[in-house]
């Protein structure tokens, strides 16, 4: 295995790790702000306890997200200096803006976590809102940089040199809007379902816990509102990808042959040699219908592109199907919860629904990871789509296996500790959290 392979693996591993904390860093502040807002409105202490308990978890997640994000900003250069040398001037702009947004988030998370006794309740809530908003913005900026790698804009190539650079046009590239929309919603979906699962789990043990009931209500509300929007945005994303990166779309759908009235293939085993997808569930004309609202529309297959420009079809297709399946399962669950909620006029606590919610806890993150595999592996063999190949951007540094192994071990260790600590935040402290938080401000 080559250094190139390990460089890609290290980047993939670092992103796969960071994206969980980044998504929670966008989603958790919203939950906290809603809980604290409910407290300000209703003065019910349970909401205050809830926002305090959530904020303790967020503190841990945010810290790990911050350090893994710092690592990524260096890894761009440590692993892909060839890319950064050319692209830095073009997409440095969103990274700089992200720097400021993240800075604001880091400042106000300090204010929020340690300021319970130092700020008026309204100001405290307001700093929570700033954390939530700046978290969203920092996600938006970073995703535009990634969108540029998928749909490069804002420059001209003359003799292998980037000229007539326009960083604003690069930031507002054609893939930005759909990627930003899909990722931001994904953060809310994943956080909502993951947090709902935690509290559903405790509700199964103690059906009368007001604390877990209120928590489940907020998390489930966020999840149920965002998942239908996310499905719509996913449909929109697929159409844009079909237009901007037809080879990627063909790989997502395991669609080898160009045809009119193309079927939608679900699952199956894509075979690059025979250019067929065996054992797939085929929905006649489905793909044409989904992409163009026309059952007879022509959809370009992978055969239109030289095979050296294909991404790994199996990985992309299976990841895509996994993401869609996870999304659909969450949509069904949201419909079920919403229906029960509406029927009984209170957050659902039907035991079978609670069990389903616990089981669905990881689905949002499964969808995020699978979706990023689709986006990034689907972009291959390009680091800048159609412009620069990934293998030409890699560092000349030998022995990349060493940092890959070190960071992988380090991140597994961190993940283990984080899960352990998050569990303890809920398990061991049964009483009200007010006292814990009061002591932690003086820790």
């Amino acid at each position: 295995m080559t250094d190139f392979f390990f460089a890609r693996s290290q980047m993939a591993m670092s992103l796969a790790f960071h994206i969980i904390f980044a998504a929670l860093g966008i989603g958790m502040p919203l939950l906290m702000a809603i809980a604290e807002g409910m407290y300000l409105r209703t003065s019910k202490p349970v909401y205050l306890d809830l926002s305090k308990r959530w904020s303790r978890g967020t503190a841990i997640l945010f810290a790990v997200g911050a350090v893994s994000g710092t690592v990524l900003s260096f890894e761009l250069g440590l692993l892909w200096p060839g890319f950064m040398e050319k692209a830095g001037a073009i997409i440095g702009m969103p990274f700089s803006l992200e720097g400021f947004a993240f800075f604001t988030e880091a400042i106000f998370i300090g204010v929020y976590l340690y300021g319970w006794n130092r700020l008026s309740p309204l100001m405290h809530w307001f700093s929570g809102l700033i954390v939530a908003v700046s978290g969203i913005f920092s996600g938006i900026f970073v995703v535009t940089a990634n969108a540029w790698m998928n749909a490069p804009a804002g420059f001209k190539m003359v003799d292998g040199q980037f000229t007539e650079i326009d960083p604003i046009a690069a930031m507002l590239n054609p893939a930005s809007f759909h990627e930003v929309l899909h990722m931001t919603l994904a953060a809310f979906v994943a956080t909502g379902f993951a947090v709902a699962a935690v509290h559903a789990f405790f509700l199964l043990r103690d059906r009368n816990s007001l604390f877990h009931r209120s928590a489940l209500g907020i998390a489930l509300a966020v999840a149920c509102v965002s998942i239908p929007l996310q499905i719509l945005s996913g449909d929109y994303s697929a159409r844009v990808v079909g237009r901007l990166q037809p080879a990627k779309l063909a790989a997502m759908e395991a669609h080898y042959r160009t045809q009119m009235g193309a079927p939608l293939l679900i699952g199956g085993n894509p075979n690059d040699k025979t250019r067929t997808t065996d054992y797939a569930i085929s929905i006649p004309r489905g793909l044409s219908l989904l992409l163009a609202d026309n059952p007879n529309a022509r959809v370009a297959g992978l055969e239109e592109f030289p095979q050296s420009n294909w991404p790994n079809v199996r990985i992309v297709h299976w990841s895509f199907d996994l993401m869609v399946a996870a999304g659909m399962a969450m949509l069904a669950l949201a419909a079920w919860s919403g229906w029960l909620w509406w029927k009984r006029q209170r957050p659902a606590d039907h035991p079978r629904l609670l069990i389903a919610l616990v089981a669905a806890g990881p689905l949002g993150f499964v969808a995020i990871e699978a979706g990023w595999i689709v986006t990034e592996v689907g972009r291959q063999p390009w680091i800048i789509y159609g412009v620069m190949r990934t293998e030409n951007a890699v560092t000349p540094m030998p022995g990349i296996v060493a940092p890959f192994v070190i960071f992988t071990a380090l991140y597994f260790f961190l993940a283990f500790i984080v899960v352990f600590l998050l569990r303890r935040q809920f398990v061991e402290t049964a009483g009200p959290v007010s006292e814990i938080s009061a002591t932690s401000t003086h820790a």
Partner: protein
Amino acid sequence: MLELTVAIFMLLSLILYALMGGADFGGGMWDLLAVGPRAVRQRKAIAKAIGPIWEANHVWLILVIVLLFTGFPAGFAGMMTALNIPLTAMLIGIVLRGSAFIFRNYDSRSETTQRHWSEVFGIASFCTPFFQGIILGALATGQIRIENGHVVSGFFAGWLTPFALACGVFALGLFAFLAATYLTLDTQDQPDLQNDFRRRALWSGLALVPIAGVVFLASKQGAPEMYNGLTHWWAPLLLAWTSLASIVALVALWRRKFALARIAAISQVTLILVGWCLAQYPNLVTPDLTVSNTHAPKITLRLLILALGIGAVVLLPSLAFLFHLFKGKESR
């Protein structure tokens, strides 16, 4: 001029990183070195002092990096390639330090686990700035060579030299001194702890003098261009002010004028970094990569300066608020 403006913003971010993030590292060092009957209380005071602000303090490093790769992409690519090994080591330190600090806060199983996290936090607080010093030192050695955008001097050039290693030790001393000086003000309500940190500030401040001497002597062989830079007309001026700042800091600590000591220590660190940059200018990686041969096109630099100006409008009041809330007079 545009590239110079971006370079100055980078220097400012670097200085602020040293003053804030650097002091957090220093706090971690004193945590590890806490001994005697008041060790537990010393650790508590350190944790309390850096708890609310450390996340923000460390974003300055991200800002430095982002400015570097946007404003000077070729410089960034060269540095990241030639100094891959020490940079990776530094990153491991950053990850362990940040996570150990937060884990310690929330992992209250027993004294032993707290101690373990403390040790990780402390050791990483030593390693990270040591490698940062090495990296900054390596850039000045002149041993990293880049031809046509390719690093031709291998992956071990520069950073293993005595000069770079001396820079690493100097960074350790500087941050330890800075942290101890800040901590004298953070412990005003506990005179015995204040005494402890005063003593630590005085010792580390004194230790800086011979270390600085070694760095200077090592630069003659180890970083000749920088050494020559330090013989410019402005050098005696800067040396005089830096010496004045360090003497004022030590005297103020001795006479328990802690607020004055903090101002003097801040000035000292600022002057050292300004001097370092002036001696290094216009090189980013001596001698091949300079501010002028690696900068991004004008439009990028203009937009970057615009973003910095607008970003500062949000950032500076927010930072002022954060420090007012947790470090202001009425906060105690």
